[in-house]
């Protein structure tokens, strides 16, 4: 089933992954099996992805995340909302975040 995300939903990092900065690279490391495509994969987030990840705190809706990022990056809100939705969808599909 396709992961469904909407701007009013709230997400938090899954306890089955660990996100870390390793010498300037922000990576997500699966702790348990079944996350990602293979057991030895690690995942990298770019600066924008990391900014979104940092705000997925189990309290803030995606809409609020997008609004905060639009201020931070001085970008177009609709475009940023789409990016936030895109990332959340991908993270949810990979079981890296859970719905709060």
């Amino acid at each position, binding site marked *: 089933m396709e992961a469904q995300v909407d701007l009013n939903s709230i997400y938090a990092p899954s306890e089955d992954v*660990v*996100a*870390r*900065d*390793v*010498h*300037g*690279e922000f*990576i*997500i*490391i699966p*702790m*348990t*099996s079944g996350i*990602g*495509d293979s*057991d*030895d*994969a*690690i*995942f*990298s*987030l*770019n600066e*924008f*992805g990391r900014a*979104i990840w940092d705000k997925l705190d189990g309290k803030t809706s995606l809409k609020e995340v997008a609004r905060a990022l639009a201020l931070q990056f001085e970008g177009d809100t609709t*475009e940023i909302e*789409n*990016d936030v939705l*895109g*990332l959340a969808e*991908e*993270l949810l599909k*990979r079981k*890296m975040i859970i719905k709060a």
Partner: protein
Amino acid sequence: MQDSFVEPLKLLELPVWEKIKNERRLISFDLEITARCNNNCRHCYINLPAKDKRTKEKEMSLAQIKNIVEQAIELRALWCLITGGEPLLREDFFDIYLYLKKKGLLISVFTNATLITEEHIKFFKRYPPRDIEVTVYGVTEETYEKVTRNPGSCDAFMDGLELLLKNKVKVRLKAMALRSNVHELTAISQFCRQRTKDYFRFDPFLHLRFDADIKRNEEIKSERLLPKEIVTIEKNDPERFQALEKGCDGLINPDFAHFGCDHLFNCGTGNGSFTVSYDGFFRLCSSLWHPDCIYDLKKGMLAEAWHKFVPQVRGMRSKRDDFLKKCRVCPIINLCIWCPAHSYLETAELDNPVDYFCKVAHARSESLAPQFRPSIATQP
């Protein structure tokens, strides 16, 4: 809108590998969580008896291990090898492993596989290691147990390995080539290649003991193969031989020797990794046991060891003529296992050439096709 925000990467694709070419950054560390082992392999440089109470008492506690791991994470380490002795002997193995996982480390485990149970399998399936590396000492009971000197160990190994493979836990296999199993090396290689797709490697270089036990060191020496035997088995293994030639091609270059320099270390030791002994001593690499090159993590901090102690050790110099005129400028050093750490294990000094290593290196050099051979060769 971007196509993908989450980019899956293999470990070796991380940009950090580029960064460490120019500067020291911690990537990985080895945790020797015990020196004890249920086997008693003839060639083993570390093992002490499984029931050795004094050794067990000296082992780092779970709390000490957690403390070191915490500090390694602050230094941005990414990968940890859990090794021993036999790490599965520790009753708190699962706790140690899980702690490393929770800290976001990739984990490899070295084990002889004889103690693997269904419980381990369940655990590894839930929390996958990056890999489990198992050494194959023989494929018949007679040979296997001639090496391990542990009755019943061959069956236990076969059962353990079968469990890992059947359950698709990522396993790498390797072998040590020694006097007691060399007759079975081809069979060992076939056994390994039938079971894993990974490049199977064997190691003919037997290191002497960390505790300098004289009797055990004599035993290890008696297990060493002759230089020409090493060359023969390497030549019989096309994959390995090509790798040797390829490596040699890149390694024997005119800049390598740094003529005129008196530094002891010209390898990468302590540049991207370190090792912690079972009793909490920091070392630059697993073979380096010289008292001037170890740092007690029970009394000091990892950051100090990493930032201050390592450069101090790497800056050590030698005045020994023998070393400066031979190993320090040796054009075939990359075919040789000589290094200050091995020199210390063999001769109790960091800067002595080692006759056996020298002979093996020259035999290897002569076995290479002329275009891969170094132009100048020091004499053994």
